[in-house]
């Protein structure tokens, strides 16, 4: 690895021997660069924004310009900020440079997540138009009104069934694939749904659940099977509440099993072979090995996977919106948040739902922070 000195610093460094004029010139040059690059960055930034907002160029030109502008602009901003800081005396450079590196990330996180959390909590203590302070009334409403309580029952169903079955199927497939010759192909196919959007997955499963009148052929797979077995076609996602929720939950199982499988597969491969060999020599059956050795050995991974899927399922939104739009008793916390805030314009109630989502992940946050405290270096 060759380490060329940075070209800008090279030009700007005053040599001891060039005397006063030289030093002044070098200083002026440094100032010039320190001003010119940020100015250039600013100009590019503003011109780009103007162009994108007002241009009626062909779509693909706009797209291309915006990609180059967005990606290049950020790089340029860092370069500009760094140039400014490096033009300062060394002591100041050392003091300020870390903030050039870390500052933008922290500032964005504070603006986009930290402060909004408190702002949302604040809004949740006011009434529907954010005018009158109502204290905890929104929360009381959420936990006492029947139609809102359904939301929690549904989320509970999502978490319990979604996480449980994704973990079970993931584990099952990981164990089977480990012993199969077709491991790679099988895993890739199970894994594939992870690349599909929830909206896309919603369409895929809506098509499976499609219902037609009994007098014409069914085009939805599920109803075709039911009719072939002599049953009546049904609108699966609409009838027999609350079990219709299960037909939506199937989708998240379908999507998340791949994730569980990959993590379990890696964990299973980490079990020392001698341990399994020793058990086999002692006459343990494969089922005993699975329950007595494998499961305890990868328990940590199982908990991680389950937690991740729970957090993920807690925020489920797109699937419900696409499949039922929250009708037929399928509303969940995230859709209620959207409905209350954006459809019903009840800012207080909507915000309260968002706060509840955060409260639900607090234990995980606490766990993460505790692990950080134990870590060296911090």
């Amino acid at each position: 690895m060759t380490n060329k000195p940075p070209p800008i610093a090279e030009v700007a460094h005053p040599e001891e021997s060039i005397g006063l004029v030289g030093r002044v010139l070098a200083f002026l040059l440094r100032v010039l660069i320190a001003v010119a690059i940020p100015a250039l960055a600013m100009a590019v930034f503003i011109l780009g924004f103007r162009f994108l907002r007002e241009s009626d160029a062909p779509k693909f030109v706009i797209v291309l310009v915006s990609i180059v502008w967005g990606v290049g602009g950020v790089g340029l901003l860092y370069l500009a900020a760094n140039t400014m800081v490096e033009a300062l005396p060394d002591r100041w450079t050392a003091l300020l440079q870390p903030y050039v590196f870390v500052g933008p990330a922290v500032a964005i996180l504070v603006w986009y997540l930290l402060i909004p959390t408190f702002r949302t909590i604040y809004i949740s203590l006011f009434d529907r138009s954010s005018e009158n302070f109502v204290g905890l009334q929104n929360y009381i409403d959420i936990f006492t009104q029947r139609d809102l309580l359904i939301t929690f029952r549904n989320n509970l169903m999502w978490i319990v069934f979604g996480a449980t079955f994704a973990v079970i199927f993931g584990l099952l497939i990981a164990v089977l694939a480990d012993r199969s010759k077709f491991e790679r192909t099988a895993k890739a196919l199970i894994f594939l749904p992870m690349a599909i959007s929830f909206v896309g997955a919603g369409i895929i499963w809506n098509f499976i659940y499609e219902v037609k009148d009994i007098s014409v052929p069914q085009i939805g797979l599920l109803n075709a099977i039911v009719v072939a077995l002599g049953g009546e076609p049904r609108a699966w996602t609409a009838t027999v509440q609350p079990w219709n929720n299960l037909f939506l939950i199937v989708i998240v199982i379908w999507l998340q099993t791949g994730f569980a499988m990959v993590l379990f597969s890696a964990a299973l491969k980490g079990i020392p072979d001698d341990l399994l060999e020793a058990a086999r020599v002692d006459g343990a059956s494969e089922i005993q090995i699975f329950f007595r050795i494998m499961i305890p050995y990868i328990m940590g991974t199982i908990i991680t996977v389950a937690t991740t899927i729970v957090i993920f399922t807690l925020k489920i939104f797109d699937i419900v919106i696409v499949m039922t739009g929250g009708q037929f008793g399928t509303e969940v916390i995230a859709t209620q948040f959207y409905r209350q805030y954006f459809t019903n314009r009840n800012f207080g109630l909507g915000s309260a739902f968002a706060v509840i989502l955060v409260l639900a992940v607090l234990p995980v946050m606490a766990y993460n922070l505790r692990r950080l405290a134990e870590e060296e270096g911090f």
Partner: protein
Amino acid sequence: MSLKLGGHKREQRISFLLVNGFLFLLVVLWSIPTFGLFVSSFRTKEDIQSSGWWLIFPHKEWVMTEEFKPEGLDPNSVMTIEGATGTFEEFREGIETPDGKRIRWVGNKRRGKIQVEEQKWTMKANFTLANYEEVLTGGEVKITRADGSEEVIKGENLTNAFLNSLAVAIPSTVIPILIAAFAAYGFAWMRFSGRKLFFVIVVALLVVPLQIALVPILRDYVRLGLNGTFLGVWLAHTGFGLALATYLLYNYISGLPRDILESAFIDGASHFTIFVRLILPLSVPALASFAIFQFLWVWNDYLVALIFIGEKQDVKVLTMRLADLVGSRGADWHLLTAGAFVSMVLPLIVFFSLQRYFVRGLLAGSVKG
């Protein structure tokens, strides 16, 4: 001894069949939904509506072999046609004869016809690209239907949405990674006051659901005029992906060997030079894993786009247009299947070509809060 060995072998073969058979079953179960969508997107509008997609496979079906007028038959009494006996109502349903034929009366009593059908192998495999033409085209498009008739339809213009998705997804992937990489380097190799506090903020925000931020940020955007712009969406995705990106890249960058950096320092390189010339190239595996995740996440995102792009038709991304289609044309499966597949093409290409990095990212903890 040899007997025992043979038994062992058989046992092995049974377990081989059991394992692979069961695995095969699960894989088929997992693949059918996507496969059905894929196949359907190439079927004609009429075929999709009238028959299941699985009928593209060879199957036995009643096919008409003969048709004639019912002369000399009284539909009001019991009739015998081609060896089948029954009333008019029974013939309307179709009566099967012992030699495997089915006789049906089609139409009403006075002007109906008799059809003789036989079970024959057949498949409904008329594939077409018309659905894709219809969803992708911006202007009007002439579609030739199965019966040969032509129809002029206004296309759904998903091409526009596809380009929007690209314009949203690429910067929304690169920008957070760049910002996170700078921050990760800062946390790993620089000492400054506030370092611990800042990192606590990063870790604390790892699992915070983005829903909590949507409303306040939307209010800011309305004030700043960022609503409905690409810049606004990029920044939102950056904000929501940054905690995880910083945390993952920190784990990677802080694990790089210390002596490489120290020798670079001794050579007089600045932090910026070391970062650009040394750390970024060394971190490519970690950057790539996270990039894939962030790209798929942004491409597939619906909620963030829904809030920050809103009703701006011209800027809507694919997932939004698809969700709109579900709402407005929920029964037009020829459009929905083709549209869904258009939205899946790029993620699937990324997924299959970069699967290795994808798995590596998963194992490193690329799961969003």
